[in-house]
């Protein structure tokens, strides 16, 4: 699509997108650091994740402010309006992903001095990798405004859920065998839950990309088509 006749408007939209992507990048590294804190039992890394989260929170405020400014001054319509709606939704998902990374990091700190659950904890890394991959692909779909990439993210949502199920089952079996270690086991389950939430947020982002590109709302299993949404 050609650029806006207003260069300023064009620049504002570009700035909004760049800021969102930078925030997305920070979320990815936060998750990575939190998981590394878990795997290496390094409480220092956990503190770093908490520091990074303050930057992510600042991103959210700046993006909201920029979006409100564009809405008020440019009154976007069509695809521009859908982009603004997407930005406002995506920023919330990213901010929550940052919070989930902090949650993982906090559990990592608690777990650094606890016993290890060999089977469950071995799965947390792969689960984090899948969740991060989902997030990265959702953000790629957003950058490239590619609905088919977004659809691919939606189709692979089950992979995170499946790993979550495996960790929960393994942890339950461990708790039955080692009731004295329930506290550590609970923390591992929590970590898995946080990662599962990150996967869900990535899915939300992908859903918004489909809306941005095609104008179709696919959330909550809905697929309101252009035609049916277009009637009075």
């Amino acid at each position, binding site marked *: *699509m*050609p*650029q*806006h*006749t*207003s260069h300023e*408007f064009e620049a504002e939209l570009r700035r909004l997108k760049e800021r969102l992507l930078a925030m997305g990048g920070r979320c990815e590294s936060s998750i990575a650091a939190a998981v590394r804190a878990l795997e290496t039992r390094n409480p220092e890394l956990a503190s770093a994740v908490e520091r990074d989260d303050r930057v992510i929170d600042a991103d959210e405020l700046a993006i909201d402010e920029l979006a409100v400014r564009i809405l008020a001054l440019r*009154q*976007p*319509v*069509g*695809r*521009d*309006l*859908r982009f603004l709606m997407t930005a406002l939704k995506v920023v919330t998902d990213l901010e929550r992903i940052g919070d989930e990374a902090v949650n993982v990091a906090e559990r990592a700190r608690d777990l650094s001095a606890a016993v290890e659950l060999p089977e469950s904890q071995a799965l947390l890394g792969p689960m984090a990798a899948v969740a991060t991959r989902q997030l990265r692909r959702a953000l790629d779909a957003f950058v490239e405004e590619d609905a088919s990439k977004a659809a691919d993210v939606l189709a692979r949502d089950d992979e995170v859920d499946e790993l979550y199920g495996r960790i929960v089952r393994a942890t339950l079996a461990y708790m039955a065998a080692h009731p004295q270690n329930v506290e550590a086991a609970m923390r591992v389950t929590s970590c898995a839950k946080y990662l599962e939430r990150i996967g869900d947020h990535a899915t939300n982002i992908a859903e918004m990309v489909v809306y941005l590109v095609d*104008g179709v709302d696919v959330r909550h299993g809905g697929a309101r088509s*252009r035609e049916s*949404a*277009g*009637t*009075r």
Partner: protein
Amino acid sequence: MPAKMATRGLSVWYGSKRAIQDVTLDVEENAVTALIGPSGCGKSTFLRTLNRMNDLVEGCRVEGVVTLDGEDVYGRDVDAVAVRRRVGMVFQKSNPFPRSIFENVAFGLRIAGMRDRQTLAARVEESLRDAALWDEVKDRLGDSALALSGGQQQRLCIARALAVRPEVVLMDEPASALDPIATARIEELIRELKRRYTIVIVTHSMQQAARVSDFTAFFYMGELVEYGPTERIFTRPIQKRTEEYITGRFG
């Protein structure tokens, strides 16, 4: 419900220049249809073709069909004046006659042969009320219409158009010369009027089209590019040219 007005394969020429090309469009009853597009896109020509205003332009030729309640507006036995009585028009620049407020509204009725003073007075009041102007002018109906503010003059012109009880009201940028308050009044009025009239409005303000209309038609270089419910046109336009125009990507 069948469309109140419709065009089928409508083309309009001014001399050898084709201003409108093969436009097929339905105008829904009791709804506001907005025509948008850049200058010279043919939207005003299209509007004027609906009530045969273009008959008055030398060298203008119309091809295709325009119907009002299914009847051909350009039919051999159809009187253009009768069409214009059923399909009224309000122009961009308010153009009251240099007469009293009362006489401006009564003008069309007198031409139509209405003589009875009481009937005239009743119809003038009704029209001024419909145009949301009555309360502001009821105590000075004998004053010159030219003493009214710009927004009031435009509502007076709307009252004048409504006095002959048209079925369709065509509006050619009715608020483009007004301040935001007067514009808001006209837009509120348009929403009120659609309950009893069918309205077609040409506007350069896309926000105005978005605010007042139920359906939007986007014209570009004499062609109808896209038509649909306004809410869809402004959130999910289908045609690339519509998207570019409404989002301000003019190349």
